[in-house]
């Protein structure tokens, strides 16, 4: 028996008793949060949880002339609702993440400072502001901390619901602030909700795949998981990050060379796809699909986190790509097809209407709902003038990504991926099945796997070959935090 079931989980139908690793993997591919009455007639529909703080998250203001406009979140939310998409998903108001939660990734002093600082007091803290990179791109504004709590809370809640199989796909358009560093703000990002969400997912999933289609490099997430310092007794818990972004011309943030592939145990687990200006739908989606398909095949993620920064759309105020909303959402559609638990977040996006359009379309994609091109009447209809349509034209841009350039990139990335398969020490065979919360059924449980309830509560399943050692470890861990 490979999988040791320790804990009862309601409604989990997976991992009954025993299963081979192979099987577990297969299952994890198909795994969907099971609905209580699976309908045989209807094709099973994903359960989608949508997180939005309808009252506050859009009502902050970064400052005059700052391109980041949280009001875009209101517009997105409103457009989603006016298309009636609320009928096909559950909607949650996330909790506001507590400082301790934020400090799961961020340094405590940084979180504490964010908590403490306000526009009126910032002049007293020049040193700290500089240290934490606050001020210019990342101004201190009214209700800053609450804003962070809300968007981070959304992503954390989304991850938790996924962990508990309460949904198959979780959406938090207000999240996706991928630049924030452990102890510093960066690029309009203060708290890295993605890292927090991934950390949450790591409690239940060994392999989390992060995909980023923001026009900017997802440096904060990459950095956070550039290598995994923990010397696991069992196996590697290496998050894989894949970022498609504009690189060069000193484009922010300046990282994300194809050569940056991770360090130490994390080597080959950071994938960067640097692109040049003007990439169009066809090139982008082809590259995206090729790479992501190979990544998923190689890495066998248990859950995917997808950052859908909308600044990769044509006409973005800060971006320089030439993607249409169709091209952008095609990537979302593709990722959804893997049928893995999926956490979708927003990210950049500085042309408000297009952000709202894009994320609405992508909400529709995730819900399998076709949206009429004509935007329905809604409070913000005026923002969608003059055409009042969902689709936007591609920009008239030259694609500076030559075929040979793209193919060189592709070759490099695929080469890296091959190294994963062959790298000693991180062989996939040693990686446990993804899913860690198997059904606990005492009656069916193999007697020699039984453990006392106390231990049961503390333990997680893992591969049998590690069982003995793990067990010792677990006992030790009982005294842990």
């Amino acid at each position: 028996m490979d999988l040791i079931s320790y804990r009862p989980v309601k409604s989990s139908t997976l991992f009954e008793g025993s299963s081979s690793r192979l099987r577990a993997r297969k299952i994890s591919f198909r795994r969907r949060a099971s609905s209580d009455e699976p309908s045989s007639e209807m094709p099973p529909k994903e359960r989608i949880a949508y997180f939005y703080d309808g009252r506050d998250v859009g009502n902050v203001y970064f400052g005059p002339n700052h391109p980041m406009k949280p009001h875009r979140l209101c517009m997105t939310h409103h457009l989603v609702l006016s298309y009636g998409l609320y009928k096909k998903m559950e909607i949650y108001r996330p909790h506001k993440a507590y400082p301790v939660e934020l400090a799961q990734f961020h340094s405590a002093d940084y979180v504490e400072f964010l908590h403490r600082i306000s526009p009126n007091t910032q002049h007293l803290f020049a040193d700290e502001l500089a240290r934490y990179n606050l001020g210019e791109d990342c101004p201190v504004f009214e209700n800053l901390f609450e804003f962070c709590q809300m968007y981070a809370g959304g992503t954390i809640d989304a991850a938790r619901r996924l962990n508990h199989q309460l949904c198959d796909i979780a959406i938090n358009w207000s999240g996706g602030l991928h630049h924030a560093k452990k102890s510093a703000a960066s690029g309009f990002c203060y708290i890295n909700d993605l890292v927090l969400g991934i950390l949450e997912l790591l409690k239940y999933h060994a392999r989390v795949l992060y995909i980023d289609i923001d026009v900017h490099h997802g440096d904060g997430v990459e950095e956070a998981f550039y290598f995994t310092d923990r010397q696991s007794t069992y196996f590697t818990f290496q998050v894989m990050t894949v970022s498609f972004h504009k690189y060069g011309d000193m484009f922010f943030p300046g990282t994300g060379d194809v050569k940056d592939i991770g360090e130490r145990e994390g080597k080959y687990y950071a994938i960067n796809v640097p692109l040049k200006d003007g990439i169009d739908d066809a090139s982008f989606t082809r590259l995206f699909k090729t790479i992501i398909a190979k990544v998923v095949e190689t890495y066998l993620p248990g859950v995917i986190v997808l950052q859908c920064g909308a600044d990769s759309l044509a006409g973005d105020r800060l971006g320089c790509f030439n993607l249409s909303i169709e091209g952008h959402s095609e990537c979302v559609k593709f990722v959804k097809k893997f049928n893995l638990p999926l956490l979708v977040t927003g990210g950049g996006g500085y042309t408000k209407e297009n952000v709202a359009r894009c994320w609405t379309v992508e909400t529709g994609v995730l819900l399998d709902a076709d949206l009429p091109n004509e935007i329905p009447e809604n409070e913000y209809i005026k923002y969608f003038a003059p055409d009042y349509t969902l689709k936007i034209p591609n920009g008239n841009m030259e694609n500076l990504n030559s075929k040979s350039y793209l193919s060189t990139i592709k070759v490099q990335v695929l080469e890296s991926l091959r190294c994963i398969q062959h790298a000693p020490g991180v062989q996939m065979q040693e990686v446990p099945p993804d899913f860690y919360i198997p059904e606990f059924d005492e009656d069916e449980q193999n007697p020699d796997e039984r453990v006392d309830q106390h231990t049961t509560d503390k333990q997680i399943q893992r591969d049998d070959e590690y069982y003995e050692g793990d067990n010792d470890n677990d006992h030790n861990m009982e005294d842990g935090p």
Partner: protein
Amino acid sequence: MVFNHSKQSSADHTSDRFAYERARHLASDDQLAQYAEDSPSLAIPAKSPASGKGKKDFLSCHKDFENETADHSYDNSHNGLSGNPSLSWVTGNTSMDIWLDNGKRSLCDGETCEHGSKRSKQADQNLQLCSSKICISAFEESPSVGSEDRKDRGTAAVAGDLVNQATSSNWFSRESALDSPIRIPSYPSYYGDTCQATESDQVEDRYSPVFDYHGRKHVPIGANHQADLPEWGSQDFKNHIRDNDVCASPMTPVTTSLSCDNVVIDGDDGDKWVGTCVIPMPDSAVLASDVLAYHKMECSCLDAGSIRCVRQHVMQARQKLKQKLGHKTFLELGFGNMGEVVTEKWTEEEEQLFYEVVLLNPASLGKNFWKKLPQVFPTRSSKELISYYFNVFMLRKRAEQNRLDPLHVDSDDDEWQESDDGESSTEEEDSVVESPPADQDVAGEEDDLEEAEIAEEDDDVEDCVYYHLSGYNEKQPSGDINRHIVGESTLHSSMTASNLHHFMEEHDIQDDSCTSYEGQHNGVVSCDAVDISDLHHGLIEDHENLHNEHRNDGLSGLADYGFFDGHSDLKSWDMRYSCGTEKDDFFSTCNVIEEVFGKEPLDK
């Protein structure tokens, strides 16, 4: 290698990284590879360059002084070229000039101090492009000789500049002077091999070899950068299972005093915080159905397309949604704070006051109405103000724009426009012809706001258009434009005197005088200084006067409007106000370029 980083973190990671890299290099004999691996980075521009479109990021390096700076890349390339593989750290070089140039421009923006750093990102693209090209081509000319000379020259030039800059700006001294020693080795043979011959507009093309970027920024490594993964077993599984249909309500917040030692959240409690259910999962039948009840409403209004008509339909849609969702859910979803309904929480007087404050504090004049608003509305929270601004103010403004200039509405023209005006007006001081349009934007915008009010009151779009057409209908020659700038400045001074007639007279007097734009601009600024203190008191009377004029006094209202809207000829207004893309003579203004590049990035 001494790094003068003022930031703990960057110092950390730089040295970490650096040590690491160095170790690596010892094992490497390939010099190029070594450099490629080693060279950490160019200065990466701040993310929000300008009100910039992506293009603007280009060389508008301002932020990342903290971590690294571009300036030294060229120096290092010299060293490399002269066969010295070691990295050298010099405090100045040619590229620094670019830098300082940007900084200077930004600092001279005429913006208030607080905007200095932000503005700094909005350096003129042309100039950047230009200087960077020069800079690079300088190196390309003779990659292997004279590098020392150039370095010296650059250093000297920069040193002077640096001092000036450092003393002239808090921002600069903080961000750059303190952090300036930077390390950017670059690839020695790079220019020679690959870039020399290219005749390209894009600097990036000079680094065309796919991967070997000129300055590569490395991922910092260390405890201060990577995440600590959650410990297995730290999670307590005991009771975290939530039933699906229990929409978990957030637990009573555990009063969490954040201690550095105890940052691991208790899995038990943490698992309960999974949000508050607003709309539960629909049943599977609904889920499986593909029908979304979505119908565009049929409009049979006589005035179809008018503001009133649209408003009516929006309200209908809203009511419909409300019925479907139920009042509680409706509010829970945030509809209570969305759209025109926000006005219900505001009195008419407050609304008018709000308009006035925004109107009289355009960012283009270095003012920030967001600072003013809380003073004027002490009882309103910032959330309320922001909500009003985006849900009511901007939407009304947008309603007008949609009708007046439907093809050229800019998605993010809210405050962006106003503030860009300021920048262009200072940047274009040398050009009398080109700057006025920028300033007219301000006037145009204000007119537009006035219009919005009028239209809201009259519920009649036609009227509003009529106002426009009744203004000066000819395209304004630059003389006229200047006149209106004078009008602008007098507007502000006379507002405090709350004497509209005086205002009008002054306008007439100055009607024919085409003083230089620069002088007038200064006038505006000085007026402001006085205004700021008085603005507050005079605000309401001014406002009333203005509106009385507009509403009650037909003739003078028109004339008045014509004055305000002197440039209001529809066409010219269009061009300047929101598009400007097709007008060659506007290209030198920074914001126009941004617009152009944002919309058609490779056209020009």
